[in-house]
């Protein structure tokens, strides 16, 4: 058989020219399948699934807190008829009927609410739940907020599906402005080494490709675990010592002071952050919900990493 050897083909695929071509192709395809304005008829969600969305969905079920926050921020909180047990922001959300947990929603509860649209996220909900709901005849639209850009895109997409593109566009633009302002304020500041603690014991930190690592980057920091191949690796405490973070940030969820959470870490005297007392807690809900409050999360991080630049 004639033709280049597999090795040659592989080498060619890795070449810059090839990669640019593929990226262009993907981008063009992406543009082609972007949902039309108005949210009526067949649309394609962020997982490439075709979804029949009603022209003006009046009974919406949200399967994640970030989605609930997005719907409220677009002014359409009234159209929500069901949220998860964990949807607590804004406060009005707590008055909505519950449909169960994020990983264990009750299908019966959802069906009883007779929704005409269900919003789910690839980051927290299970694929098999999405499939089951779809097979029961529900319109399930899935967003995919894996990084800064896709979080903004998710807000835009939800806006489109709800028929509120203008509000969404406005929101996204304002978020970009705020993000840029923060970046401006941080111009020229030295990058500080940051360890973000998702969970203290065992130590779980954000690795490559996570939103948190990216936010730390944008906030003028350098995530000491940002190069880890797994998204949320479990690391030994030695990592804390070895990587010499200048800031340690713990995502708190309600109870417990930072001292409680990081009990025992005061032993790590050789670590700059510990020695200088630069150990901070931030609101875990802010950091772990890829939604409209992402910019506040960014600001929190920037404030902790560069207090002199961001008041």
């Amino acid at each position, binding site marked *: 058989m004639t033709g280049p050897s597999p090795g040659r083909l592989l080498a060619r695929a890795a070449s810059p020219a090839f990669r640019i071509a593929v990226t262009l192709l993907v981008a063009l395809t992406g543009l082609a399948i972007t949902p039309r304005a108005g949210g009526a008829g067949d649309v394609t969600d962020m997982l490439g699934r075709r979804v029949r969305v009603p022209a003006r969905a009046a009974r919406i079920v949200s399967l994640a807190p970030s989605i609930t926050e997005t719907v409220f921020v677009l002014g359409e909180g009234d159209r929500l008829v069901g949220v998860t*047990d964990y949807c607590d922001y804004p406060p009005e959300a707590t008055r909505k009927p*519950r*449909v*169960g*947990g994020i*990983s*264990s929603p*009750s*299908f*019966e*509860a959802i*069906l*009883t609410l*007779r929704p005409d649209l269900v919003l789910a996220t690839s980051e927290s909900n*299970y*694929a*098999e*739940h999405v*499939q*089951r709901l779809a*097979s*029961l*005849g529900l319109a399930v639209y899935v967003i995919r907020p894996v990084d800064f850009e896709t979080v903004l895109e998710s807000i835009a997409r939800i806006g489109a599906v709800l028929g509120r593109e203008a509000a969404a566009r406005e929101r996204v633009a304002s978020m970009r402005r705020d993000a840029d302002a923060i970046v401006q304020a941080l111009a020229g500041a030295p990058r500080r080494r940051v360890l973000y603690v*998702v*969970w203290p014991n065992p130590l*779980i930190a954000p690795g490559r490709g996570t939103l948190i690592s990216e936010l730390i980057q944008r906030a003028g920091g350098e995530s000491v675990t940002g190069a880890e191949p*797994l*998204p*949320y*690796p*479990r690391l030994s405490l030695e990592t804390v010592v070895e990587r010499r973070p200048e800031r340690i940030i713990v995502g708190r969820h309600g109870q417990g002071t930072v001292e409680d959470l990081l009990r025992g870490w005061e032993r790590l005297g050789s670590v700059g952050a510990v020695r200088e007392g630069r150990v901070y807690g931030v609101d875990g809900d802010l950091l772990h919900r890829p939604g409209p409050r992402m910019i506040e999360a960014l600001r929190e991080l920037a404030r902790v990493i560069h207090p002199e630049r961001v008041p």
Partner: protein
Amino acid sequence: MISRRRVGVTSAVIAGGLAVAGLLGLATGPAPIGPGDVAAALVGRARSDLAATVVLELRLPRVLLAALAGGGLAVAGAAFQALTRNPLADPAVLGVAGGAALGAVLGHLWGLEGSLAATVGVSAAAFAGALIASIAVYLIAASGGWLPVQTLLLAGVITGLFFSAVITLVVSLVDFAQLGGILHWLMGSLGIVGYRAIGVIAVGTAVGSAMVYTQARALNLLALGEESALQLGVEAERVKRIVFVAASLLTGVIVAQTGPIGFVGLIVPHGVRLALGADNRLLLPVAAGAGAAFLVLADALARLVVQPAELPVGVVTAFCGAPFFVYLLRTRLRRRTP
């Protein structure tokens, strides 16, 4: 003496009990659908779209799965107990459930969960795991054409422990984000199931149970000890092989779908044995029916207690099963001692 008639009559009674349990199961759930709506939906005259969907698409598959799983696990448990001459034997003890669990965990990890053939993909991996585990147990225990039962039990326990250790290893290394799904599966649940999967399980359960039942009389004789059974004309090795394969098939097919559900295989056969005696010709069908009813009710309870959330059904079986068993044991003991 056990007669065909007695088995038939008792089975009919149990079937009646199972039907009642089934209706209770179908009437339980957060949606406002009562027994009347359930009955209507079952005969095709649903009073609303919601009722039809909830009853036929959500609750009915679930109740069917609970019945099949409960019955199958009870039969497997009774079979393993007769095979190993040990009332503590249980599908979990013999390592088969552990193998299925590991298969499912690996299936989740390798993205089978996200694929379109999601449930089938993970179940296939779990069944493969169960198969590998039972083959391993058999190979460890068998030597020179013989399958010594004590060794079988030990081999099963060790294999089960080994697979548990591997699962723990995998769980410790796996990414945090995938942890939830895996732990959820390991708790055992009857959650989302389609009719195709139920069909597969029904066939597997029927075949496995039938295989075991053909050996029911021979299994009775095995309780005398292998030497006596051989001397009474039982081809002990053949019987053991058939029963082992059948019970492993039953366990594998069920655990592959539901995850590990404990106690049913241990407690139900025991309870039935204490009540009706050890003759497998009666024990097996009654245990199947009792196991089915037990799991259907346990699942209804699991869905009722923290509505609209659900408890893993394995938790309910443990909480209900253990005290009931203690009660059985003690009343029986009190009767026997003078």
